[in-house]
């Protein structure tokens, strides 16, 4: 809602096949975003999804209400950030928490509402079902997995925030498993993310049940990663006689 300063640096650490970040949702606040960032985003000729996080229920409601009056295309409810002390993940790790916040924000906006889920839960299927039952139009997962890296020379955590969110190829198998479990429980679209770096990873996500795939960390290694993934997906579909990615969504053949 208001400007967030974010966490002190270092905010990033490299791990085996992954990275930990602890940015802490640094952002200029909703009013600044609507006035200064949104006009530029709308000029980019693409769908604009605003990811929102408040410190309290009231803040979530108010942010969604203000965005509802703009030309943002969709709203993604962030109830899974591991790097802020208030809000974020606090609302996303129990079914009751997910239900309450989703129902509240649902009342604040008629725009398509995506709920971004945390992997730091014991039963992702239950959480996904709670989001759908509370009015979510789609779910996206996974956000990062809480992790920690310690510098053995200084005996201090590498991140100033001590812990951070793990992303990158290291989390792909966890993400694929959770997308599969969540997709089995809901009929709304599932957006899959978490460690997707290649077209093969994207195919796995689609087979597991994702209708769309997001790419984050891979952009740090290669700014063209999303384009390579799209190209590779097209070839895979052609070679296997599929006309559209829709034909492979949720088509994993599970061993009985």
């Amino acid at each position, binding site marked *: 809602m208001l400007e967030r*300063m974010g966490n002190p640096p270092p905010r990033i*650490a490299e791990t085996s096949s992954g990275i930990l*970040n602890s940015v802490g949702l*640094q952002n200029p606040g909703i009013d600044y975003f609507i006035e200064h960032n949104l006009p530029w985003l709308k000029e980019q000729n693409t769908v604009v999804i605003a990811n929102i996080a408040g410190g309290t229920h009231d803040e979530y409601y108010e942010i969604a209400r203000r965005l509802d009056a703009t030309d943002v295309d969709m709203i993604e409810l962030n109830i899974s950030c591991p790097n802020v002390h208030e809000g974020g993940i606090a609302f996303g790790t129990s079914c009751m928490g997910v239900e309450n916040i989703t129902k509240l924000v649902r009342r604040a906006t008629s725009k398509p509402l995506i709920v971004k889920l945390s992997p730091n839960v014991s039963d992702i299927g239950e959480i996904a079902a709670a989001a759908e039952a509370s009015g979510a139009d789609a779910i996206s997962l996974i956000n990062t997995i809480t992790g920690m890296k310690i510098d053995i020379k200084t005996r201090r955590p590498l991140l100033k925030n001590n812990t951070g969110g793990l992303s990158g190829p290291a989390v792909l198998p966890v993400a694929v498993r959770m997308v599969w479990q969540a997709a089995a429980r809901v009929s709304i679209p599932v957006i899959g993310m978490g460690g997707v770096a290649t077209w093969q990873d994207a195919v796995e996500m689609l087979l597991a049940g994702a209708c769309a795939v997001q790419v984050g960390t891979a*952009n740090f290694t290669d700014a063209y990663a999303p384009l390579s993934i799209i190209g590779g997906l097209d070839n895979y579909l052609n070679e296997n006689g599929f006309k559209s990615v829709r034909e492979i969504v949720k088509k994993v053949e599970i061993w009985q």
Partner: protein
Amino acid sequence: MPYYQDDYKIEENDTSNSSCFDIQVYCPEIANAAKAGQFVHIQCEGKILRRPISICEIDKKAGTIRLVFDIRGDGTRWLSKQEEGAFLNILGPLGNGFNLNETAKKALFVGGGMGVPPLLEAAKAFKGKADAILGFKCIDNSMLIDDFNDVCSKVIVMSDDGSLGEKGFVTSLLCDRITKNKYDVVYSCGPTAMLKSVSEITLENNIACFVSMEERMACGVGACLVCACKVKENDKEAYKHVCKDGPVFNAKEIVW
């Protein structure tokens, strides 16, 4: 500001000593767009994060940039082993360079260790009118002294252990130099503790000072908000980002 990502060929690899590497890369688009003080972001095999390396020299005619860097970990060790003719995937040029609008005036360059390379191209712009104080841990860690002698009117070399030049830190001579010489501007790069001292001394003496900062970085283009640097902005503290707002900052902005 345009930046490019592509595979670029190493034209020369001159190891100057055992702890640092010195390469020339043929990358005409990057060389043409580059300014003194900017950096490039280099992919290292097996690493998710690129390694930000400051540009030491730019030869727009030849289409090359010179990179001098320290071996600090696995990524830079891999980089150091790449031979002439090998290709590096480089993203750049990135960041804002030094503000060299004041080239007519008298400048002092203060570099410490790996903070020395990013100052060379900027020093060249002063066409022999600038002075430099270069500090190194010891003689084995020294670099670019001849290069600075070629482009500066006076170069003072110092080392922590006295194995090269005068013994002591660069800041111990800085007070003396700036009271005796009428410098209009000081440009500095090096360890944070050194930059803090340089900043304090120049501010006390009312001399403009620009520092090139370093922080653990991910995207390099201002998107991920990882490389935070605390600054004073309109009488309050805020985090700017080394990759996009820096790496060069006005020293009086920084909250040390």
